[in-house]
């Protein structure tokens, strides 16, 4: 989002992050909602159920007995040509896991909001990105929201992107559980009519129809499976262009535009910190304070996580010497998953920054402005030190 710019078209309201999503789903005129409640996603479903019951939203609300069934129901509805929505968190996302591949493999544009939460065990209802990282490879378009405004805007965009004929992939919006789901803040909600104009009616090219029977999700023997998967990868990669153009068009219509990689105070920065999700706004305050002290630091955030924006990332880090990556998840035996991807994306660059990895804020551990300043300082030292190994990562603030 353009910092300091106008807040865009619409009226200012106070909304909880969950309800901002429900509002977006309602304005998108969604046909079918199938979801199973799980903390911290529950309020989205509650509000949508209310909207359907009160007649505010003319949709089919399917009460399912599990997340596995929720996703299966969405796939069926999407195949019949319905605009579908679901949402979940953590264990719920894991329970859907096998069905996620079916949605993308069959090219159904289901939209899902994932209220990011840690995975058990030990049981934690609090925020981190281990649920998101477990579904990196499912061929869903995935974007991260940093605040409730973005949660609303990206949910609206997700329908438009997913249902585009050149895309036809499901889309996932990640937002931080509790830090956004249960937080009320001021945001701008556009006119419902304008949202509906922005998202044309969903028309699946080959909907289930008793008059014209088709088989979907057929058996694919070895002589055809790789070709199908190659086609899927090519189409998925290409959808990036569509993501970019929808985000920009959203900016033109509503006055708030988004980039695949977002930057904050990156002009003439030589040190950058990179992350995803809601902690980034707290990190901006650390950047401001360090800039006031004369440090040339900036901030990068990944908006589009899948398909990965390689080109945009390379452009964003071209002139910096040190890149500090803050992950909100552990890939056991490997380190920070985002950091690993950043390293691989930059491996072939002739000039690449020294990359330092931190893991912070897992299981809902609070990350403050001071913590970010400490990570900047420690990160700069580690980048300079000869002793720092390339596979080293630090779990910040952990008592040992």
């Amino acid at each position, binding site marked *: 989002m353009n910092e300091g710019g106008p*807040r865009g078209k619409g009226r*200012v*309201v*106070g909304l*909880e992050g969950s309800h901002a999503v429900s509002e977006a789903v309602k304005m998108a005129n969604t046909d079918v909602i199938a979801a199973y409640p799980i903390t911290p996603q529950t309020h989205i479903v509650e509000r949508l159920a209310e909207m359907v019951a009160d007649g505010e939203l003319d949709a089919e609300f399917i009460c399912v007995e599990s997340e596995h069934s929720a996703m299966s129901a969405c796939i069926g509805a999407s195949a019949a040509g319905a605009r579908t929505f679901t949402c979940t968190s953590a264990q719920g996302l894991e329970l859907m896991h096998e069905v996620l591949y079916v949605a993308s493999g069959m090219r159904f544009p289901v939209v899902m909001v994932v209220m990011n939460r840690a995975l058990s065990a030990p049981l934690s*209802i*609090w*925020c981190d990105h281990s649920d998101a990282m477990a579904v990196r490879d499912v061929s869903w378009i995935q974007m991260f929201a940093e605040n409730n405004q973005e949660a609303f805007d990206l949910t609206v965009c997700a329908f438009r992107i997913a249902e585009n004929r050149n895309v036809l992939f499901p889309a996932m919006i990640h937002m931080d559980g*509790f*830090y956004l789901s*249960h*937080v*009320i*803040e*001021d945001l701008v909600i556009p006119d419902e009519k304008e949202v509906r104009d922005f998202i044309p009616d969903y028309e699946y090219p080959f909907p289930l129809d008793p008059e014209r029977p088709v088989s979907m999700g057929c058996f694919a023997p070895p002589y055809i499976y790789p070709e199908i998967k190659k086609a899927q990868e090519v189409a998925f990669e290409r959808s990036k262009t569509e993501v970019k153009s929808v985000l920009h068009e959203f900016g033109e219509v509503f006055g708030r535009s988004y980039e695949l990689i977002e930057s904050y105070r990156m002009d003439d920065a030589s040190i950058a910190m990179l992350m995803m999700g*809601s*902690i980034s*706004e*707290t990190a*901006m*305050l650390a950047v401001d304070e360090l800039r006031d002290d004369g440090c040339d630091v900036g901030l990068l955030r990944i908006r589009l996580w899948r398909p990965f924006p390689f080109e945009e990332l390379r452009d964003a880090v071209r002139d910096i010497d040190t890149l500090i990556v803050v992950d909100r998840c552990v890939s056991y035996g490997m380190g920070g998953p985002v950091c690993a991807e950043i390293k691989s994306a930059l491996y072939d660059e002739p000039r690449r920054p020294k990359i330092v990895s931190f893991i912070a804020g897992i299981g*809902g551990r*609070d*990350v*403050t*402005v001071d913590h970010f300043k400490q990570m900047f300082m420690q990160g700069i030292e580690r980048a300079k030190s000869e002793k720092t190994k390339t596979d080293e990562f630090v779990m910040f603030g952990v008592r040992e």
Partner: protein
Amino acid sequence: MRGVWCSAGNGKQVIFCDGDFLLMIEICIYGRGGQGGVTLAELVAHAAIYEGKHAQSMPSFGPERRGAPVLAFVRVDEKDRIKIRSEILEPDVLIVLDESLLGVGDVVDRLKKDGTAVVNTNKKPEELKIAHKVATVDATSIAREILGVPITNTAMAGALTKATGIVSLNSLEEKMRERFGKLASKNIDTMRKAYDETQVRVQQLSGERGE
């Protein structure tokens, strides 16, 4: 009333100036599960947004248990959109919904030096061993009398407004109507009565705002 952090005592405090907050105001609400602290945080944030300010309410993230200490947070900023999302460690205002919590944890110690404590108690401000500016009101009695239950959040909304003026009674009233439906009018009466009965003791300010 807007633009001046008024108190029942001597009128002004340093935090509001010429219609602007000089800084973001951070409020911690300390209560027990079931007393409505999270709802109070939400009402204050909604009221501030209704007044055209930027605001954020945030529960302390945990499973709710009736009777257990619960923290909720509110931030209000007249000028800038609020970016910070970490928990409030050193609030400008501390609302204590249950007097028995004053001795639990270090919540009072973390109140900023020139901050304000708003406490539900039947004691007078000077009877509390708190070095800060203190406002007191017997919210439990008022809530029992008007609502018939010891849920003190809406009474404490009145006390907050009397002690700080961060949001107006009218905006709170508007948001209570939206939120509580037919229960609104009793809660509004509770808030107004608590506003009238809140006593404020103003501390000598040191001049600088303590960080």
